[in-house]
């Protein structure tokens, strides 16, 4: 690896060991990584615990786009944001956790806005299930009980 590469590039290692080479300007959009770089405790590889390769790739894609398009029109960026965050709930949850943990403000903003859009017309009942993990009768009867009692073997 050449020295120039090392100067401007950082290597991020996800929780499952995959490594990503990203420009420093992109990586420091995460305040947590920025602090590490400024304190010079990031020698060459920065471990990113709690974030797996899949999610880390998404976060890097988002940061790259935001870094490149600083000069671009804000409306373009907005459409990118809304498309980017339009994902399944599992990925959304992981992304929010990652963005919160690594302190990537732009991403967190976009994600929270997306969740807000998702839940703003929903009922209280719905929120309880989604946010607080309440299990309700509907779930009990339709899936939960049948899974537990009907799908087991009685030997």
């Amino acid at each position, binding site marked *: 690896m050449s020295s120039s590469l090392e100067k401007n590039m950082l290597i991020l290692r996800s929780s499952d060991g995959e490594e990503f080479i990203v420009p420093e300007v992109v990586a420091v959009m995460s305040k947590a990584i920025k602090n590490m770089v400024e304190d010079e405790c990031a020698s060459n590889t920065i471990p990113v615990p709690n974030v797996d390769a899949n999610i880390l790739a998404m976060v890097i894609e988002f940061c790259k786009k935001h870094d490149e398009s600083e000069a671009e029109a804000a409306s373009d960026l907005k459409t990118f944001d809304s498309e980017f965050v339009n994902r399944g*709930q*599992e990925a*959304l*949850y992981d992304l*929010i*956790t990652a963005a*919160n943990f690594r302190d990537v403000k732009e991403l*967190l903003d976009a994600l*929270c*806005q997306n*969740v*807000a859009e998702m*839940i*703003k*017309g929903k*009922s*209280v*009942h719905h*929120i*309880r299930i*989604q*946010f*607080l*993990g309440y*299990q*309700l*009768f509907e779930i*009990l*009867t339709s899936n*939960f*009980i049948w899974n*537990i*009692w*009907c799908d*087991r073997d*009685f030997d």
Partner: protein
Amino acid sequence: MSDFFPDEIVVEILHRLPTKSLIQFRSVSKSWYSLITSPNFINTHLNHSLTSNTYINSYDNLPLMIVRQCVSSSDPRTEHYKLFIDSQDSFDEYKELEFPIKSRRLHFFFAIGSVKGLFCLHEQDRYFLWNPSIRKSMAMPKPTVKTSMHYHGFGFVPLTNDYKLVRIADLYPTELPNVEQPTTTTTHIEVYSLNAGSWRMSSTGSNSYPDGITISYSGRFAAYLEGAVHFVATMKKTNDKLILSFDLCDEVFQTMLLPDGIVGPLTKVRTSVFGGLLSLLCYEDTAANKSCSIWMMKEYGVVDSLWKQFTVDLSGGITELLGVRNNGHILLEANAPSDWVLSSYDPSSQQIKNLGVYASAYRFVVDTYEENLILLDKPNDAFSRRRVSRKRKDRFDQSSQARIDALVIDIRRQHREYSLQFEEIKREIEVANVAIARMGPQHHAEDFAKLYTFLLPLQLRDVSSNEQIDSMTLTATSQGSVMNDCDVAEKLSSSCVLGKGVGVKGKDLNGCTSSGQGKDLEADLIKMKAKSDEGLKKLSQIKDIIMQIISKSLKPTDYSAGI
């Protein structure tokens, strides 16, 4: 997403929600309730919606304007507040808001101001705050100085997140008990702060109040901008016009003398805010010249930056300029055959379009509709409620009371039945649980324990719903249509949410407010009864299923135990 979000993320998400959702989501959990109603959250939510696009956070993502329409031809006189969609080519009515405060006199209220979605109104010495977006209103205490001559300014203090109302009262010698200088009037400055919840004489205000001026009465809002309210005043000696501003944070008066050439001696001047700038509306009313010029102050506080935006010809029956639309058109009040009508004026083509909103003169109010959670943390208004309930009880018709009582008894009975059924299921599960724990493999017992823990909280919630019905009927009957519909709606929705087990969904009733009138309450109760009927049916189905499962699962274990 079945896991919990960290608290700070939940707060971030809630900040981005419109007020209507937040009002509903108060009943999600106790912690959400205390979070959403905390003053801190209310302030940060406001700041958030101010920094983002003005209307993007509103429930329907529409650019809305609120219009006050006072109809004097109807009996009794009614004050309407309507929302209009302010789009490029049209100005269509969206919905009417329910105005919760009833006047005790034949007059309409005096609208003192509207700031960040909060309205301030008064009638003699009764003062009210009203937040239409959460349907909550509040009566302020009465001011200490009694006088007939007063000027008001209402605004927001960004530094302390406070709302203040300043009342400038001129006291004539006859109104003072001990008169030392019998010929002069004295001026008292009184300030109401929402955070403090009380009126206070402002000594800094009295000290900085300039001598020798009179405030011109405009009958309009004193323009609020940059944390200060702005009046137009006249020097007594020279008859020069000036802008008198009162900084709501420091409570200090300041004057800005208008440069020559803007106003003549006969010009009527009003302050206003057009396009986010402090503006002066200068009405000329002479035989030769009937017009209104709009002067805008490009740089706040610099009188030399005043420039004439345009002039509207008033000879065509236009009486007043009210506000500006998103597309730059001016909303104004025009003379119609028997009434006055809200019209839209295009400055470039000078065309006037009738918007079809008829009302009596000089009482139109037009403002951008903003959503705000303010007053949500304030206690309900005991003062007004008491007053109203006495009147209302007389009007409350006996037969509808009887019907409501019967309905309440019915619903209670259903709830009791529901709890009994519930107990039965619980007992069955308990028995099965014990049996399985004794003889079955370990993980089966765990399954039962899981089921049991899910049933328990549901049952607890159901018991509390009985109390909720109590409180609902109590509030609805004792509380008039005048105050705090929001409160009843909230009780209704939470009772329904708590009665979740009975199949009542909060969403259905959140929308409908009991305005406290018997009819509405009755309709709500009938709805609730239907829901609990449905819920009972559902429960018995569930019971069947559970019984089936239990008998099925117990059989093999019994059998193996037998061996």
